[in-house]
């Protein structure tokens, strides 16, 4: 009893460098990532947007629209799979916004703030946990796709590269979601981000339908939409039908490069911004 309560004497605290080293930062990130994964295991319905939703979307799109949308050079099923992956991963980044808004809303953030931890671990741990759930989402989409007849003529490496391309985009987008979550008054208002921003972003693209039939101005938006580049890039890697290849806009001619550039740019802007918002939000 006594030993449990005994406190260490205070050493010469001084103001020596107390910024955590790389190893300690990494440990903080692992701890925070694990914490967020435990959250998910406690409320499995949180995962519905990366488990049930992808299955639902795949079945709905393929059986409802599949017959009505002719795809030059292949089946709608082969066409839509990359689009469904992009759609599901784009919209699932909403979870990052809601998760961070929830953390800030709870008292737990004050606990983190008085610990001698590397504070950005709160953000990095969140983004890594969300990346892991995004990987789960990708697996669900792939398995569902295979079950309904999606096929790819590509080798294993390009297949993996296609998934990695979309996951990298989703990861960078999750930092935009983090910025939104850090500026939300409540978890509920963070959730509205999904409907107001993410769904239009995912739909005004070549993910669901070829852009050729859209009105001119919308076509321009869709062709430069990062989601279009990401989707076209995956289609190209998977040897799936890619009607956008005939569009002269630069991102449609170089979808892989465009997807990587977009993702890197978004990450480079959103991550430091999120870190600044976090500092501002936790300063009083």
């Amino acid at each position, binding site marked *: *009893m006594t030993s449990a309560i005994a406190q*260490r004497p205070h050493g010469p605290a001084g103001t020596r460098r*107390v910024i955590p080293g790389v190893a300690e930062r990494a440990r903080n990130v692992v701890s925070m990532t694990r*914490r967020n994964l*435990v959250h998910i295991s406690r409320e499995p319905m949180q995962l519905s947007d990366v488990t049930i939703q992808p299955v639902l979307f795949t079945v709905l799109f393929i059986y409802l629209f599949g017959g009505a949308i002719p795809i030059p050079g292949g089946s709608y099923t082969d066409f839509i799979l990359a689009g469904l992956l992009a759609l599901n991963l784009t919209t699932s980044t909403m979870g990052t916004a809601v998760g961070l808004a929830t953390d800030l809303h709870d008292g737990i953030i004050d606990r983190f703030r008085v610990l001698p931890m590397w504070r950005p671990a709160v953000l990095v741990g969140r983004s890594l946990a969300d990346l892991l759930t995004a990987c789960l989402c990708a697996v669900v989409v792939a398995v569902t796709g295979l079950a309904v007849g999606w096929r790819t003529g590509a080798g294993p490496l390009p297949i993996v590269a296609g998934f990695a391309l979309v996951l990298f985009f989703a990861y960078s987008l999750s930092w935009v979601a983090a910025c939104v979550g850090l500026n939300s008054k409540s978890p509920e208002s963070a959730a509205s981000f999904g409907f107001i921003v993410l769904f239009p972003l995912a739909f005004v693209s070549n993910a669901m339908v070829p852009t050729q039939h859209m009105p001119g101005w919308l076509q321009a938006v869709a062709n430069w939409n990062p989601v279009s580049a990401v989707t076209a890039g995956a289609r190209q890697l998977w040897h799936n039908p890619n009607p956008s290849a005939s569009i002269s806009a630069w991102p449609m001619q170089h979808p892989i490069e465009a997807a990587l550039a977009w993702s890197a740019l978004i990450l480079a802007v959103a991550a430091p911004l999120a870190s600044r918002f976090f500092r501002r939000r936790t300063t*009083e």
Partner: protein
Amino acid sequence: MADPMIEADGLRKSYGETRALAGVSFCVRAGSVLGLLGPNGAGKTTAVRILTTLALPDAGRARVAGVDVVAHPAAVRRQIGVAAQDATLDGLLTGRQNLALVGELSGMRAAEARTRAAELLELFELADAADRVVKGYSGGMRRRLDLAASLLTRPPVLFLDEPTTGLDPVSRQRVWEVIRQLTGSGVTLLLTTQYLDEADALADRIVVVNHGQVIADGTPRELKERSRSAHVEVTLAEPGPGAAGVITPLVGGKVSVSADGLRLSAAADSAPGLATALVRALDDAGLLADNIEVRQPSLDDVFFALTGAHVPGEGNGSGPEPMRSGQAGPGDRAAERVGEGAQA
């Protein structure tokens, strides 16, 4: 003379229009316990938030373990343990996971953090609930777990913000026991409370704050002496018509007599030897007393003497007066908003 471990010097802080701290200064010597006492919204939580690096002061300086909290917050965080007023726990983790997480984030090895967590869960009688999700804990259990989290790394300086507010009497006693054990361990402790008996029981020194200002600073004994009012109660064996007249010159005030004429009570200056004088006077008048009680002023009396108002919500039996509603002015209401703002 031990060094001050916690120093607040002219701290000022406003949240928007509302002034939470209007120049607060105090210090806590190493190894001692300071009770920061005041009603809801007095500025206690704001002071703690500044000292624990959660809030920046608008003006003034604060040092913990000799380190400036504004200039070197990270160094300060290595020296402190904090149990906030609203338990800062992760509702979706178990009690054990919460403590392990705090340990790991404080730089402990995972195995070390787990061992220490188990030890503290045992100490706080939470071992049975250790693997349950915290969302289902009672208020008292949360508070104890939060207290355990603050002790995890054995920090030499502890801040406990209203550690017993909202607890049932049994939980409150348990928390008191732990705090008493802590004070014997050499830790420096700052404790905020609305309960006068709590500050009296646990603190070496008390700083009374009200409306963001320090209105008194001293040992519990000094504060009681400052109010210089004692309460006298005499119970007679049989009614004596002249009894009130016998006591009146000694207490120097109005004596009230109960309906049956057996109990007399009065406020008195707490002069030395008052009890002896009462016994003599009653004996000289041929009156038989069953009981003579000279009660030292409670801290509620002190608070009343300092502010002209009773401590709101004082309901632990140590203060004889019920809360007088209607005395709280608009200032009190503004101060209450400060308390809420500080938690947001």
